[in-house]
């Protein structure tokens, strides 16, 4: 494992970024990658370009033989063993490396989902909860890609509400088997998997996970779904009819299966973020190539301001997204690296990752929505060609959509972001309430002069500092009104989540750019450009909250504070956008 590039990683967990100010040296950025990480990244790019790219048409035509073959090749290269311990044929490397792999694999949405479902939700439950025998039996086969894994939690009547699943398990009379009955829905890799992690309730009560091999009597895989996107990934229902699972294939403890189900999702979420960045870079490259070649009114369309605006907006989105994703995963790595000095249990690893649950959800929601905007813009600049299958823009547009639905819908994740933060505050694990108090005091005392560092991003730092205050101010106002009922006010919780997401994304972009110390004028431009968008979202969300929690004089007073906290002089985003678009056009892809 390569050492952490940051000094004090335990900070900034579980929403503490709202109340702490970090410096550039406190965060991990893509510029901090080690030589091996870069090499593994390059090796993955080569695999993606030479092996996946030429087979996309076959993958999309649901030729699952091709997918299986590619998974095996990826296994041979070691790309699937990064989260697996060495004694089971894996490489047990840092999470940044596994995110880089997820990012670079994502040039094809379908394959990316097959890959992630296998290495993530498919394999990790076994890594984290498997007994020595279970691991010995299955893990090296999964790491090598010889076997493919799937994770079956969702059911027709319970997706988000997974705790209410209906699949039942019952111990057989001789105590040798669990007998499972029920149906699962939308299971990725179901059509190609050799091993399923299936969730069920023992005697209708105890939540539990079971390892079920394909071919087990009573386990049937239903027909492939016909999907909007990621059409080349296998998604089927599972039907369990008196399916006999040997007792030794119970995974983890009976009654604690929900820990497995939910802890895995944190990893799934940050990896989804990384994959979204990869998908975005790939779509961006395709869009840019087209915009350089397409002639309209005797000019390449990339010379038109409104096309450049789409290019700049997309590029700035990728930049902020990269900054966000790798900052969060880098912090998780640094936290895990501390563990390794002592003997580590997988329980401790999970606990450390869970500390970042809020950040993992932010990465998931923010990146999936950035990607959605980007593929829309890339399709748009293709004009009519964007709407037909000839160019990949159409596929990228369809493929991006799933990211807002699985690994917890974006609504559910928004509720986690603000809900967990508030909960931690109530439990006294996060000093949110004193911070809110400080902001209120400061406001009452009148505004101070601008603080913070100078430098090119002084204005953005100022915006960020005020964004944090505004978020705290809104959280305070909302808590005051609703007290312990706040969690029920989903629209407000959603708006708070939006504010938190923007704070974290903007802060990540600013800190990364500062860490570059002027080496990239493009990074400066993109940070400024992105900040302008952030501010708009923050303002809209704050207005939604403030308008809902007070009226009359109280509302007017609060709006005066709102105006003070959002006051700023706009950047020239037209000039910045042109500069960004020109630099990207020259290089022909996303670059920093």
């Amino acid at each position, binding site marked *: 494992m390569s050492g952490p590039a940051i000094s004090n990683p335990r900070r900034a967990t579980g929403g503490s970024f709202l109340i702490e100010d970090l410096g550039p040296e406190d965060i991990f950025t893509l510029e901090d990658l080690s*030589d*091996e990480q*870069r*090499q*593994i990244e*390059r*090796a993955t790019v*080569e*695999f993606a*370009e030479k092996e996946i790219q030429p087979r996309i048409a076959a993958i999309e035509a649901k030729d699952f033989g091709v997918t299986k073959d590619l998974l095996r090749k990826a296994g*041979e*290269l*070691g*790309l699937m*063993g*990064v989260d697996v311990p060495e004694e089971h044929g894996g*490489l047990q*490397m840092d999470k940044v490396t596994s995110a880089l792999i997820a990012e670079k694999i994502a040039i094809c949405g379908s394959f990316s989902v097959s890959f992630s479902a296998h290495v993530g939700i498919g394999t990790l439950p076994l890594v984290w909860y498997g007994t020595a025998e279970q691991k010995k039996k299955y893990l090296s086969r999964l790491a090598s890609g010889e076997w493919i894994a799937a994770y079956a939690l969702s059911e027709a009547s319970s997706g988000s509400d997974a705790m209410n699943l209906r699949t039942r398990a019952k111990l057989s009379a001789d105590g040798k088997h669990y007998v499972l009955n029920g149906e699962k829905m939308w299971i990725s890799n179901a059509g190609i998997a050799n091993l399923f992690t299936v969730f069920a309730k023992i005697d209708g009560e105890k939540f539990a996970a079971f390892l079920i091999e394909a071919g087990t009597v009573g386990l049937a895989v239903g027909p492939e779904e016909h999907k909007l996107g990621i059409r080349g990934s296998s998604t089927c229902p599972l039907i369990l009819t008196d399916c006999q699972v040997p007792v030794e294939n119970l995974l983890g403890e009976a009654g604690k299966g929900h820990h497995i189900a939910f802890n895995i999702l944190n990893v799934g979420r940050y990896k989804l973020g990384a994959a979204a960045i990869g998908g975005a870079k790939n779509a961006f490259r395709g869009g840019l190539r087209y915009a350089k070649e397409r*002639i309209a009114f*005797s000019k390449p369309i990339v010379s038109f301001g409104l096309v450049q605006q789409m290019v700049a907006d997309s590029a700035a989105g990728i930049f902020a997204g990269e900054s966000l994703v790798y900052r969060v995963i880098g912090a998780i790595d640094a936290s895990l690296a501390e563990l390794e000095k002592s003997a580590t249990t997988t329980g401790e690893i999970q606990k450390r990752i869970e500390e970042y649950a809020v950040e993992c959800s932010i990465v998931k929601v923010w990146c999936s929505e950035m990607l959605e905007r980007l593929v829309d813009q890339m399709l748009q600049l293709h004009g009519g060609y964007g709407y037909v299958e000839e160019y990949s823009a159409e596929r990228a547009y369809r493929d991006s959509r799933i990211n807002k639905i699985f690994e917890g819908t974006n609504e559910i994740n928004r509720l986690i972001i603000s809900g967990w933060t508030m909960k931690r505050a109530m439990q006294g694990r996060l000093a949110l309430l004193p911070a809110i108090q400080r902001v209120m005091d400061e406001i009452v005392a009148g505004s101070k002069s601008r603080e913070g560092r100078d430098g090119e991003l002084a204005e953005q730092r100022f915006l960020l500092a005020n964004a944090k205050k505004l978020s705290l101010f809104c959280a305070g106002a909302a808590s005051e009104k609703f007290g312990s009922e706040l969690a029920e006010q989903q629209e407000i919780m959603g708006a708070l989540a939006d504010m938190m997401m923007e704070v974290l994304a903007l802060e990540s972009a600013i800190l990364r750019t500062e860490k570059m110390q002027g080496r990239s004028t493009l990074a400066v431009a993109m940070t400024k450009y992105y900040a302008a968008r952030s501010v708009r979202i923050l303002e809209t969300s704050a207005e939604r909250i403030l308008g809902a929690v007070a009226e009359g004089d109280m509302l007017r007073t609060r709006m005066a504070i709102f105006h003070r906290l959002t006051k700023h002089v706009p950047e020239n985003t037209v000039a910045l956008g042109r500069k960004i678009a020109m630099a990207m056009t*020259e*290089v*022909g892809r996303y*670059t920093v």
Partner: protein
Amino acid sequence: MRILALIRQVLDAEETVRIRAGEVDLSASKLVVDTMDEYGVEQALRIRETGVDAEVVALAVGPERNQEALRTVLAMGADRAIHVMTELALDPIALSKVAAQVAQQENVDLIFCGGQQADWDSHALGAATAERLQWPQLTWVNALEIHGQTLTGRHDAEDGSEMFSVQLPAVITTQQGLNEPRYPTVPNIMRAKRKELRVESMESFHVEPKLKIIGAEIQVKARLHKILDGKDATAAAAELVQLLRDEARVIA
């Protein structure tokens, strides 16, 4: 025996060439090991894998970033690497002087070199190295076997192919079809970290390139934006044919 694989780091074929101050600017570009050189590395590894007691050494000459290319080759399986560090732009003839000296210092028996350099489109490096060493060279090889001190193989000729055999030492230049280079695997990338990568300074080789690049520019394909008046369709068609034949010269 010892096999030397010459490695050059070149612009990825997908990348856009950029010019700054009259020079090709590679600073923000994605660079890769020249595919032709990868065939050489792969072949060297295959020779070693037949059970021949061989050490595979990779050599790159150029700026610091070349070490990235060497690490990749080490991850493919080369045993060690030598990096001769220089900011000088070396033409193939100058470069061959370094290659030949390293080959002698290292007591090399066999040298692999790409048949053509992706950036210069030159075929000279292998030939010039062989000439300096007074070794036989075999160019554009697309099949190769080794038995003791004898290499046998094949290379394409204009209308077919030629078979050859030669005694070591020799210089072999590669071409597509020789083999399918392996990918560096993640475990091998980790292992490569511990392999020797020796850095040497350029001075000891006494190389002064006689050829200097004094400018570079990108070919701009200007469009004429000529629109033919189509009121008289027959005349317009005739004019179009005439333009395509005589001006654009795209039809005969």
